[in-house]
């Protein structure tokens, strides 16, 4: 969906309310309306960054660290950001509130001179190099989109905004996360929790399995007569498989049932049930539906997704979109080859993108990507497993550096240490994003 000039004007007039269709309505529920007044007239060279999460904060900060002469405007719809990594520990009752997972933007402004605009981006005009927001329009020399994900709700019949309030996805951390925990707390002992996971690729490959571990942990300690069923659309555990399976067998054998190749295609909110391939109905007392995903709505609306209609193809060195020039896409929304859709990948991609945006704006040669992913998943409150990777570019594609990376030892000999390291992982990465 490429927006031509006429469509763009129409969107402006109509307020570009398509967000609600893809489940990215503003917190208030009403679709944001684009404003046509120019918000901040551009005087010098400017990069606009959309999305204040794992990717966007880092891109904004690192551009300012590398070149103070470039103005950076960070646009985010909320005044804070809640981390998805570690939100499963909150659902499991291990973290008491979301405060340790929450960052604000004031220090990025104070320390680095990033300009922060709280607004909803409603449209992008690649030809006029303008973004339209609920607060007004902004011109850019280069645009970096780090919009995260939105849901392909057309693939789960009945899963609309109202159904999400009954059967939360909790796949964007915040109120949905709180809702899922409250439902678990309110459930009677002896109840059944049903989870569904979508076919890969989706945000955070090990996420559904860590979620299952953390819900099992909660049930084991608070509601031991209860059960959890994970209906996984994938043919097998999509990440850290043997490690998760050992963790489940050793800790949750009597609580948790893993069911591969069970694709949820429909939900019925009033009966709290899901349908597998439209046929087999599974009912739960608490139902956590993780729908299939694609790039955040704004990337789709701006015509940045590729042939799969879901994710944004980019240059592996600069993260510039192959669909529109001067627009870069990072994080979960982009196709980053071997780099998984994780918070750490977004952090690493943001730095590569920032380096090369600064290089391109200064007429210099881009620098080859060197990236890392590190990702911890908790099995219990005191044990975690990890996957790590180092990435480089070969023949125009991001690959894992041969003979490096991999998962934790299969015998859990490092699991207690990794649970401790994971806490520092969170502290460091959130500090990087917010200071």
């Amino acid at each position, binding site marked *: 969906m490429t927006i031509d000039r006429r469509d763009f004007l129409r969107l402006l007039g109509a307020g570009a309310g398509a967000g609600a269709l893809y489940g990215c309505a503003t917190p208030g529920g009403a679709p944001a309306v684009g404003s046509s007044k120019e918000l901040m007239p551009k005087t010098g060279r400017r990069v606009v960054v959309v999305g204040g999460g794992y990717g966007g904060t880092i891109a904004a*900060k*690192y551009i300012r*660290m590398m070149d103070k002469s470039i103005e950076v405007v960070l646009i985010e719809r909320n005044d804070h950001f809640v981390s998805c990594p570690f939100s499963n520990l909150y659902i499991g009752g291990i973290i008491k509130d979301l405060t340790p997972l929450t960052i604000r933007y004031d220090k990025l402004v104070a320390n680095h001179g990033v300009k922060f605009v709280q607004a909803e981006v409603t449209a992008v005009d690649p030809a006029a190099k303008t973004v339209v927001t609920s607060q007004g329009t902004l011109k850019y020399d280069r645009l970096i989109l780090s919009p995260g994900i939105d849901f392909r709700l057309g693939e789960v019949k009945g899963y609309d905004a109202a159904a999400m309030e009954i059967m939360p996805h909790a796949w964007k951390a915040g109120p949905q996360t709180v809702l899922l925990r409250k439902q678990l707390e309110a459930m009677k002992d002896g109840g059944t929790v049903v989870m569904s996971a979508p076919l890969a690729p989706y945000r955070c490959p090990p996420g559904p399995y860590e979620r299952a571990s953390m819900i099992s942990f909660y049930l084991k300690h608070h509601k031991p007569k209860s059960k959890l069923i994970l209906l996984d659309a994938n043919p097998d555990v999509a990440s850290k498989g043997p490690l998760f399976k050992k963790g489940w067998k050793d800790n949750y054998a009597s609580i948790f049932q893993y069911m591969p190749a069970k694709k949820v295609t429909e939900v019925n909110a009033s009966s709290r049930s899901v349908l597998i391939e439209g046929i087999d109905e599974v009912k739960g007392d608490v139902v956590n539906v993780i729908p299939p995903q694609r790039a955040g709505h704004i990337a789709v609306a701006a015509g940045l997704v590729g042939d799969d209609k879901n994710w944004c193809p980019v*240059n*592996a*060195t600069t993260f510039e979109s192959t669909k529109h020039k001067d627009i870069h896409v990072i994080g979960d929304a982009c196709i980053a080859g071997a780099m998984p859709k994780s918070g*750490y990948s977004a*952090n*690493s991609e943001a*730095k*590569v993108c920032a*380096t*090369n945006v600064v290089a391109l704006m200064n007429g210099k*040669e*881009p*620098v*080859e*990507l*060197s*990236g*890392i992913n*590190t990702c911890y998943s908790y099995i219990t409150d005191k044990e975690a497993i*990890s996957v*790590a*990777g*180092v*990435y*480089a*570019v070969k*023949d*125009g594609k991001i690959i*894992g*550096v041969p*003979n*490096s*990376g*991999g998962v*934790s030892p299969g015998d859990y000999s*490092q699991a207690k*240490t*990794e649970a*401790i*390291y994971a*806490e*520092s*992982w*969170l*502290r*460091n*990465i959130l*500090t*990087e994003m917010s*200071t």
Partner: protein
Amino acid sequence: MRMRWRGLTLATGAILFAAGAHAAPATPEMLANACAGCHGTYGGSAGPTMPSLANQSKTAIVEAMKKFKSGERLSSIMGRLAKGYSDAQIEALGGYFSAQKFHPTVQTVDKAKVARGASLQEANCSRCHLDDGKDGKDDTPVMASQWLPYLQMQMADYLSGKRKIPEKMEEKTKPMSREDLDALLHFYASVK
């Protein structure tokens, strides 16, 4: 006609590929930025079990990375990551982080232990851990302002044999009690 089309497509593809591949090799900064998610911006750590790399001795970083890479030094994630870098890249990383500004940390330490540690440092450790641990000499790391939990985890690994303790260090630490060793770590953590 068909042949010619294919030829044309291939030629165009080749040109695009050449343009896409045109990039300078990863700079030390590019390599190091990827580490900063866990070790902090410029290598200044905010995580109590992750060491700061900023201002660390270059040799200490290079030696540690090479030992992680070979498996000589036991690790959880670092061995897997270190295997992704050539020796030249490891040198570049060491050079980058050693050139960064010292990263002072604000952390809770026991005042009495700090005082005890200061005199132990002076009497036993100062020949290698120069200037209250602020200066790294060769492969002796900078100790000052490292996070106490990180230092305690490393000391526990030395004492259990999980991490091989350097001979000269073992001579000094062997006669010391656990309390004395802990006091030393409180001291190093407190140095700004």
